[in-house]
């Protein structure tokens, strides 16, 4: 009956056809525009995870295959010996007494994988706890008492202030001054960070969750918590002269030597917040008198180079949590998860270069 390619209703006038086709076009373009808007293509100035990582690359340059932050590191294996004390706080399968396999990574903050170790460099410990029911608990902790800022937006401004000026090759001090003046809260946090006790190395250092998380018990009660890995190794002050000038890897070499001497141990201490304690601001410490529970011991008995360990190709996203532990309203947690994902996606697609701490360095 009909042979036409398109059987336009003959009762419609040509004008009506044009208007109707235009309407359809408008609907389709509108839907596509909505999609592009959701993707952020109409708001290029908004801070996104890609822009956060772009800023890291402007500060540090791009090192193929390396993390965009905490680039210099070494990996390890060990276990977490749970003592059962955590069961009253959370139903997570990590807390009943028992031994849980762990892999992880020690690192220095900053995006330069070959930077020389220095006493004041911020150190970090990342962990993957492999729970008996197949769940995971990933952590990325740093050795600061608080995080310098509350939000990723503030963090990005601070990071941008540290982009080297092309003229001088150094960050513009006026920009950092402007950031500090515009963020009085950050001044308080930076004061706490600068007055912290700095230990001699990785093994005698305390690593903190910094962000607040929620523990949920079997009765459905939820409590805000922060935690710290407190070393059993006794605290030693750093040497007076910066040993990084003689041995660019002195912090890592000391860690390798210590683990070769014997397993290194930390106690996982969970601190419980009380009503009124800030859960959404990692730049504010909780009062010292809060109840703390020692829930077990982390034992590290083997150091591995990045080339050898699965921890190199692992995203230590702090929002990967077992049932019984959840993110709080701390805005940094979602933002960290988003930014880590971009860093991970970029580096996994790039050729890998040897790490500063090579397999030979670990085994020598």
């Amino acid at each position, binding site marked *: *009956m*009909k*042979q*036409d*390619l*398109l*059987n*336009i*209703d003959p*009762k*419609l006038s040509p004008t009506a*056809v044009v208007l*109707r*086709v235009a*309407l*359809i076009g408008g*609907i*389709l373009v509108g*839907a*596509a525009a909505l*999609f592009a808007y*959701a*993707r*952020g293509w109409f*708001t290029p100035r*908004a*801070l*996104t*995870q*890609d822009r*956060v990582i772009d800023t890291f690359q402007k500060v540090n340059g791009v090192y193929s295959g390396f993390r965009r932050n905490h680039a210099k590191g070494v990996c390890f294996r060990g276990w977490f010996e749970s003592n059962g004390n955590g069961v009253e706080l959370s139903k997570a*399968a990590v807390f009943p007494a028992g031994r849980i396999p762990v892999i992880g990574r020690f690192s220095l903050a900053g995006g330069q994988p070959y930077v020389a170790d220095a006493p004041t460099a911020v150190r970090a410990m990342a962990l993957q706890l492999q729970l008996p*029911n*197949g*769940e*995971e608990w990933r952590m990325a902790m740093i050795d600061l008492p608080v995080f310098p800022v509350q939000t*990723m937006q503030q963090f990005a401004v601070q990071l941008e202030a540290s982009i080297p000026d092309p003229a001088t090759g150094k960050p513009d001090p006026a920009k950092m001054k402007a950031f500090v003046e515009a963020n009085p809260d950050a001044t308080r946090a930076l004061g706490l960070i600068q007055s912290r006790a700095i230990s001699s190395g990785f093994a005698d250092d305390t690593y903190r969750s910094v962000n607040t998380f929620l523990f949920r018990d079997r009765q459905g009660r939820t409590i805000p918590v922060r935690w710290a890995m407190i070393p059993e190794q006794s605290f030693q002050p750093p040497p007076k002269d910066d040993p990084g000038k003689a041995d660019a890897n002195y912090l890592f070499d000391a860690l390798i030597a210590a683990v070769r001497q014997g397993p290194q141990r930390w106690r996982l201490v969970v601190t419980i917040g009380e009503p009124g304690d800030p859960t959404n601001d990692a730049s504010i410490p909780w009062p010292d008198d809060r109840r703390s529970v020692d829930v077990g011991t982390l034992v590290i008995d083997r150091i591995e180079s990045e080339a050898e360990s*699965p921890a190199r*190709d*692992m*995203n230590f996203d702090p*929002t*990967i949590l*077992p*049932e019984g532990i959840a*993110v709080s309203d701390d*805005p940094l*947690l*979602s*933002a960290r*998860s*988003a*930014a880590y*994902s971009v860093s*991970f*996606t970029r*580096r*996994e*697609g790039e050729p*890998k270069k040897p790490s500063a701490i090579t397999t030979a360095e670990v085994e020598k």
Partner: protein
Amino acid sequence: MNPTTPRTQFAVPSRILHWLMAVMILAMLFIGVAMMASLADYHRLVAIHRPLGIAILILAVIRLINRRLTKLPPFPPTMSPPERVLASLSEKLLYALMIALPLVGWGMLSAGDYPVQMFGALHLPPILPAHPTLFAFLRGTHSVLAYLLFATILAHVGAVLFHTLVVRDRILNRMALWPVRKTSSTQTQPSSSHETE
């Protein structure tokens, strides 16, 4: 219904699956692009994206089986032979993407050494070994396929709107959730070999 007249609507399960999955897939695509550009909601959106993707995969497999088992209404006579070929091809592409996208997502998380978390303590096993290059390839593929799926859906919606507003053959009645008596002035041709949903 008189059993000798050909059906004019898709079977009830087909129609329910179509509209349920239309809502889920559009929500999924918007969540997917929004989470790539959101620091504040990233964690929340990803936590929905994973189980919703697996739910779409399960429904897509059910739908494919249903597609094979049920008799389809014939193409309306207002669809020309080239239109029928295009409709059949785009249907195959939509089915392929509905199944491939969640599988690529699952495989990508496996290759990235991520736990494939659903809800509570429930998680899925990895379907691929952890491998950086494989992860990067699948991560890129996931985005490309998602944009292709969105474009294919737009083309599908555009074609249906054209038939509804310009050809005016009441083509939407075929997929309406409510029963529709045959009211089109045009005759229905006998079932052809190329049918589409």
